[in-house]
């Protein structure tokens, strides 16, 4: 049996298969489909300090091998999350990494301070990359802001910290370096790509919010490229890859490119039992490659 455990600095996981924020609800919704204790970890839907209704529908539209969404961080706020979902989540026998989004640095610090004191959480993922919140500053496009937020969170919260980055930047490496300087244990690469869909006959955007974020198989090659670049150019910064993963081959490609762990996102919607099955498939694939541990395959890409 290959060893599936991975260590992303202070974040230790039983295996590298996680599920991505916003694509797994609060886990309850997936109970009929996924044996949770098999997973390396669960990242519930983004929490904001205050309740948010989210964007008007239509909130999603399918595009060629992809999904555009403009959910807009629809959630009941931090305190309701703690009262309603936390106890269920931390009882599932897997690691729970809370994902938060703040309006400004102060709010990120307040929320992470509060979550740092909560028993049962294994880490915190900072959503500095949501493309769907109008008016909010997109911290993740600015290295200085990224570093300042991560550093501040590290000071007020003892949990392992993962910075989830936006791909909507010119140089993903610079942002990843900033997250590392700020003290991030790992980066999640990536959130969705800004996009849109148009109903030309009615001269109207299809999404209620006009612009949305693209996910699914369509984005995989771009995220793969980003994972590869960050893995090569930012040594010592573990990567959690997320973008279009829909099969074990996709998982293996990301590991070879340099990711230490992966998250399953959109695929949870169209193949809800996938995440649970991938752990066994990974185990079998490593065994058939004659590898003793998943760590042996991370970053093994041979380039000319």
């Amino acid at each position, binding site marked *: 049996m290959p060893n599936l455990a991975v260590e992303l600095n202070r974040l230790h996981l039983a295996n590298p298969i996680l599920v991505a924020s*916003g*694509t*797994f*609800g609060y886990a*309850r*919704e*997936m*109970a*009929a*489909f996924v044996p949770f204790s098999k997973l390396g970890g669960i990242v519930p*839907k983004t929490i904001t300090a205050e309740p948010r*209704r*989210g964007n008007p*529908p*239509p*909130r*999603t*539209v*399918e595009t*060629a*091998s*992809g*999904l555009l*969404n403009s*959910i807009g961080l*629809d959630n009941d706020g931090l305190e309701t999350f703690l*009262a*309603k979902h936390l*106890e269920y989540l931390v009882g599932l026998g897997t690691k729970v990494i809370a994902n938060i989004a703040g309006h400004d640095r102060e709010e990120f610090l307040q929320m992470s301070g509060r979550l740092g004191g909560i028993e049962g959480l294994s880490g915190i993922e900072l959503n500095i990359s949501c493309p769907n919140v109008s008016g909010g500053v997109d911290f993740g496009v600015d290295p200085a802001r990224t570093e300042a937020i991560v550093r501040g969170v590290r000071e007020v919260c003892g949990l392992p910290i993962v910075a989830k980055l936006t791909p909507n930047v010119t140089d993903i490496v610079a942002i990843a370096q900033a997250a590392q300087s700020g003290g991030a244990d790992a980066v999640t690469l990536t959130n969705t790509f800004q996009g849109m869909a148009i109903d030309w006959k009615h001269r109207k955007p299809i999404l209620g919010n006009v612009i949305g974020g693209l996910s*699914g*198989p369509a984005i995989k090659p771009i995220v793969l490229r980003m994972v590869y670049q960050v893995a090569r150019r930012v040594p010592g910064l573990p990567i959690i890859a997320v973008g279009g993963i*829909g099969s074990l081959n996709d998982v293996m490609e990301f590991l070879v490119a340099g990711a230490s762990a992966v998250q399953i996102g*959109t695929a*949870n*919607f*169209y*193949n*809800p*039992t996938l995440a649970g099955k991938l752990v066994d498939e990974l185990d079998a694939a490593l065994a058939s490659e004659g590898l003793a541990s998943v760590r042996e395959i991370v970053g093994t890409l041979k380039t000319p």
Partner: protein
Amino acid sequence: MSTLTLPPLPGLVPCARQLVVPIVEQTRLARDTYRLRLASPELANAVVPGQFFMVRPPGQTDPLLGRPFALYDVWLDASGEPGGIDLVYLVVGKMTGVMRTWQAGESVEIWGPLGNGFPLLTCDKLLIVAGGIGNTPFPAVLREALGLHRYGTEAGLDHGPRHVARPLAPADITLCYGVRSAEFLAGVDHFESLGIDLKLATDDGSRGHKGFVTQPAEEWLKTHTATPAAGRTGPKLAVYCCGPEPMMHAVARLAAKYQAPCWLSLESPMACGFGACFSCVTKVKQPDGDWDYRRTCVEGPIFPAEVLDL
């Protein structure tokens, strides 16, 4: 650790499952309208009227997401046991265009049953208003209301086997079914064979009443809510409706006007069908008088009309 006693989230279906099931046959029912017959005793035993399934071709990424389709009905095999489910779809876009090409013997990926289903029937007189492809949830509703089939018999279901204590007589059920034009009418022979009171309407007058289906619906409401004779109570009514949004809104307004309890089956676009993506939201009134976006796939697709912020 304290034990929180929170009500379970409404509409999560513990017996939902993801399967790859074979197609038994495809039958054309009307213009651009097909019945897809799938073999799966498991799904047939688990589902209740008004629930839906998500369907997609296995192993492909374009189309990518599943699409929601209501239970049309459970079909019985030669020995009279549930053999699987029928879905009926209208070709409107990418996925339904692909579905039309599916052949018997091929397999489809399906997950469900999903959603809350129609409430268990307790009325004396039932009015069903169906617009276009919105007729699809009603064959199963009718079969249950008439006491002809028991749904949700699978052991261990949260909703338990459904049992309609007092089935209705065919004459106590009125189905007002409207379409653009007669060539889109699907399943009319079946509805007629049940002996229910069937009122058809077409926009172009090619069959039945010419005009909106809301007109015969209003006549029904007027008749059945007329003040009962002295010393008698009026019948207990229920209105079920599924169809295009403007039609459902009109029916909800009529039901409110005549003070008849009304349920709408919403057709919000969905990406997952089981509550994970928050894309299928609709405005639902809150106890404090405000509204909130709620997920149609788990809290619906069937809502009492009065809770919807239409």
